[in-house]
């Protein structure tokens, strides 16, 4: 920018933008309050949305004051980071994708730049262009900060769901007096097998179970690590006085285990949960007598 032109206006574009933001804070906040991003997050009252908008505008002005409009790590953003994270989190929970949140964030930009264009309509074209660029860059950085927090919020959501899944996916079912079963479904990694072992051992104590059945029908792959987890669980249950049966071993899994060279002979196994239950009942001394009437019907 030519020296004399800068001297003419006494201000550099970034300072001009800072002054503009402070001057028009209220107006910008009012405009933003009606934008999708603020409207969908602050559903209770519009005042809340306006207040949130004010905070963001102030943060932008602080960043402009530091002259680091391109820096997402600028100190000015620190005060709004948490608020942006909550906003992003709220949108993500409502099912908005990252692209949608980004677009909603981008929609805030023209609401500010239009105001700036109005205000500086008298200014020389060069100065106007530079001010608009500075403001656009600043809004772009704000969007980056917002998306960063969104990604982090998304990661937290995944982590929480992962934990929830650990809890949900391991129910212990009482099949009979003294017989409990755990149907295992999905990947049996170290974290899950730990949960399985704990819930099973708890159930053995609570239900006074003598026999525990681990059903692996829903486990797609039984490799050496899964086998090791199963053997440890069986050994732990045995220490507590419960006999453990592993059921649901499909033909393909059985052949794979043999080729893999894993010795499961120390573990009592059955092909299906029904076989395991029949064995368990027999061990309990229960006899299942077929109803003669229904046998006749079947013929």
């Amino acid at each position, binding site marked *: 920018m030519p020296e004399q032109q800068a001297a003419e206006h006494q201000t550099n574009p970034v300072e001009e933008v800072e002054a503009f933001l402070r001057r028009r804070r209220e107006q910008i906040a009012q405009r933003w309050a009606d934008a999708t991003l603020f409207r969908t997050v602050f559903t209770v009252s519009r005042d809340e949305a306006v207040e949130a908008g004010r905070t963001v505008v102030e943060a932008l002005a602080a960043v402009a004051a530091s002259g680091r409009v391109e820096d997402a790590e600028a100190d000015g953003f620190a005060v709004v980071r948490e608020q942006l994270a909550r906003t992003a989190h709220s949108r993500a929970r409502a099912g908005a994708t990252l692209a949608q949140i980004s677009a909603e964030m981008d929609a805030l930009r023209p609401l500010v730049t239009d105001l700036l264009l109005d205000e500086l309509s008298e200014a020389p074209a060069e100065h106007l262009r530079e001010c608009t660029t500075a403001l656009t860059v600043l809004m772009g950085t704000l969007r980056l900060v917002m998306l960063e927090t969104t990604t982090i919020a998304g990661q937290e959501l995944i982590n929480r769901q992962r934990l929830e899944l650990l809890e949900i996916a391991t129910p212990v079912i009482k099949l009979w007096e003294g017989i409990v079963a755990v149907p295992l479904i999905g990947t049996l990694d170290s974290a899950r097998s730990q949960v399985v072992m704990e819930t099973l051992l708890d159930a053995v104590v609570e239900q006074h179970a003598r026999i525990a059945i681990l059903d692996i029908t829903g486990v797609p*792959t039984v490799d050496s690590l899964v086998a090791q987890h199963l053997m440890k669980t069986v050994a732990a249950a045995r220490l507590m006085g419960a006999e453990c049966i592993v059921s649901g071993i499909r033909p*393909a899994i059985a052949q794979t285990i043999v080729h*893999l060279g894993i010795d499961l002979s120390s573990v009592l196994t059955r092909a299906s949960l029904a076989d395991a239950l029949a064995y368990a009942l027999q061990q309990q001394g229960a006899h299942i007598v077929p109803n003669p009437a229904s046998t006749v019907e079947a013929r």
Partner: protein
Amino acid sequence: MTHSTGSVSACLPIHSDLDLVRVRQHVRQMTAQLGFRLVEQTKLVTAASELARNALIHGGGGQMECTPVSSSGGVQGLRLVFSDQGPGIADLDQALSDGYTSGEGLGMGLGGARRLVHEFSIDSRRGVGTTVTVTSWTSRPPRPREAP
């Protein structure tokens, strides 16, 4: 055996437990598409699981390349190449023997994986990394006649 090699169909990273799940799912999908029988599918998926975990735990992470191949006789197959830039394996014979483990596992991974596939080769250099290449065919290829 001579066989034509297709271009690498996929290259999957192995850096976390979640990646192991992806590796297993991908191999399962590919074997099903190529017409592997369920037993062969399960064997190759299990071998992939063992080798990918080795790359993750012992090699500090790596990748798996998955390529459909076909033999000169027109038999379809799948080749998997697991590579890592880890410390390498000091004693290959020991590592391949059953029951030997440098970690806390059962020590059946590498030797077990070799028994689960039709072709197996391993290349490991100290300080450079380890590459394991395995291939399985939809129908077992005829064994080369042994020398009398």
